[in-house]
């Protein structure tokens, strides 16, 4: 009962600023609005006439994953510090390119000051972004890269490096498993890791994910040249459900597999469920990406060996900061790395890690 009434209260709170909500509803009327987690941050300092309040739209890839809520929190923090208004609006599904293009177009015609965008597609979003820049908006790209020179800065995890980080730890894990019987005659090898590894890819055309996948594959060659990659050409699809089915099918085919890398939260979760159902969770070493609650729980029980964690809070925070700086005419770096950490049971209790995986969303988002 408590859960239900809580969600009800949430709705009521959302209605606290009906006039502003109405204005925005009027501002973007002509396009089919993707279902949105839309909220204007109302607690920002009030602007005066000399310094008109800047308005920044933050457009995530989706609104359902916790990752994006954390980005939202970081964006709100930056907005409060700078006295800017943050509009949060995204497509509901992580492959609704058309919906995201429309959101960008709507905000462009609305004439905001800046857009912080996590593009769903590295080419499809390029033209809308260029149109926005032409209209005088500053655009900062976060999370995934965009094939365009128009935007001011790219604020994101270095996904290739993050993939390599995962490969490094995979090499360690597979080495540890083999320490009892070191292979003869390989004493000076850079790494003695052995076994069969597969990568389940996410979605055709997702730049950030394929960078992670390729970073992992390249890293594996470097850190564990003896490891055999048995599959790296199958795509999981967008939802955890489709990832589960693909995972089951791959696991049934590859009875002997020692390590698996999956490049984001839904694919990791789908693979985890498939391993659980097959009774192979923990036996097959799984390194995933992003820390959601079910994945951290599975890490505690040893079903997931480690997760590469980005800093979405930082991404939202630095994204908005950079956008505002660009709007005010300050020179900004074209590439800002927000960093990635590898977490495992060993370092889970460190305060820095805890802050990373359990950001205080309520403080910034108000629920």
């Amino acid at each position, binding site marked *: *009962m408590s*859960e*239900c009434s809580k*969600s009800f209260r*949430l*709705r009521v709170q959302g209605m606290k600023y009906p006039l502003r909500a109405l204005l925005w509803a009027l501002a973007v009327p002509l396009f089919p609005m993707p*279902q949105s*987690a839309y909220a204007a941050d109302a607690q920002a300092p009030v602007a005066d006439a000399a310094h008109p309040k800047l308005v920044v739209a933050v457009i995530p890839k989706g*609104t*359902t*994953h*916790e990752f994006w*809520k954390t980005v939202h929190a970081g964006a709100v923090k930056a907005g409060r510090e700078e006295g800017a208004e943050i509009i949060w609006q995204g497509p*509901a*599904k992580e492959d609704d390119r058309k919906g995201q293009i429309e959101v960008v177009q709507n905000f462009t015609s609305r004439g905001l000051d800046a857009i912080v965008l996590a593009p769903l597609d590295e080419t499809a979003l390029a033209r809308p972004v260029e149109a926005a820049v032409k209209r005088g908006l500053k655009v900062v790209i976060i999370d995934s890269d965009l094939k365009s020179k128009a935007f001011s800065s790219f604020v994101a995890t270095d996904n290739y490096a993050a993939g390599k980080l995962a490969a490094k730890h995979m090499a360690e894990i597979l080495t540890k498993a083999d320490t009892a019987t070191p292979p003869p005659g390989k004493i000076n090898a850079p790494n003695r890791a052995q076994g069969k590894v597969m990568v389940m890819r996410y979605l*055709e055309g997702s730049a950030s994910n394929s960078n992670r996948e390729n970073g992992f594959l390249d890293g594996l060659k470097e850190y564990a040249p003896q490891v055999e990659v048995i*599959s790296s*050409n*199958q*795509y999981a*699809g967008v*939802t*955890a*459900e489709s990832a*589960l*089915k*693909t995972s*089951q*099918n*791959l696991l*049934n*085919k590859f*009875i002997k597999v020692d390590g698996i890398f999956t490049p984001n939260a839904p694919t990791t*979760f*789908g693979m985890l*469920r498939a391993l659980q*159902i*097959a*009774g192979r969770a923990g036996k097959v070493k799984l390194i995933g990406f992003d820390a959601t*609650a*079910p994945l951290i729980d599975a890490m505690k029980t040893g079903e997931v060996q480690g997760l590469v964690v980005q800093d979405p809070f930082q991404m939202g925070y630095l994204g908005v900061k950079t956008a505002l700086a660009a709007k005010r005419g300050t020179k900004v770096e074209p590439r800002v790395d927000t960093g990635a950490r590898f977490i495992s049971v060993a370092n889970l209790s460190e305060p820095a890690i805890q802050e990373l995986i359990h950001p205080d969303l309520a403080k910034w988002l108000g629920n």
Partner: protein
Amino acid sequence: MKKLRALAPYLGLAAAFLLFAALGPAEFHGAYNLKTILTQSVIVGVGAMGMTFVIISGGIDLSVGSLIALATVALARMLNLRGDAVPAWLPWAAGAGAIAVGAMGGLCNGFLSARLRIAPFIVTLGTMQIFRGGAKWLAREQTVTAPATWLNGLMEVDPVPAWLWLAPGVWVLLGLAAAVAVILRYTVFGRHVYALGSNEATARLCGIPVERRRMLIYAVGGALAGLAGVLQFANLTLGDPTAAEGMELDIIAAVVIGGGSLRGGEGRAAGSLIGAMLMAVLRNGCNMAGIPNYMQNIVVGAIIIGAMGLDRLGNKR
């Protein structure tokens, strides 16, 4: 010709299976993978059982995918009612509740199309969005985790207890298919479903309460979507408001491959079951044989059109 049409889904399934057995690795026709395929056909299959009623009666339901998502979220919400100390009755009640949510959704579809006489395609196109929105609202736009209960074991390929041999969800699907086959063939309701789809004027002439029957048919379809939602929940062990997006098309395709006619009056439970399995075999086989996803889309599309072509030929006689 009619006979061939009835056999076509079985032949298609056998052909697909033999093809992948030849192309794919040896593991494809291993017992464990066969059990996996059966498990993967459960959700589409259960949805297709409800859709079989709807399509035979000359209707269509595009909202089932959204209804499945709504049911998973509702189920997860209900499981959270007592915190982590889940009383023994709660999983049962929550499961029944999810099915009831589905039935209510289906009843909405039935009421709007039968009583207000809006074309079912339009009605369910609308409710598809509404139910999806409802699921997202209820889930607060994120996945809803729930305490572990026996519900989570419904889709285990190696079930507990082991003597079940197949996942409980598979047994649910098989039992349900048998029940639907019996209802369609051996009950007055089943006969009315065929009559409504074949010629509604005749049904009215014969004193069948056309509107009430249609509402019941959509409610049954919705209830089975709710049941599919329970199994979907078991698959991921969480309520996912974005689950089963686009699954309505897989479900409709399963019914059509299995001999259902979108003009109504034709369709069989066994056919729809085979249709669902055929789609699971194709997906599994493509993954196993390392065939890219786009080939899978092309093959499924070709099979749907092929099924329709047989339908036309069968009607020309």
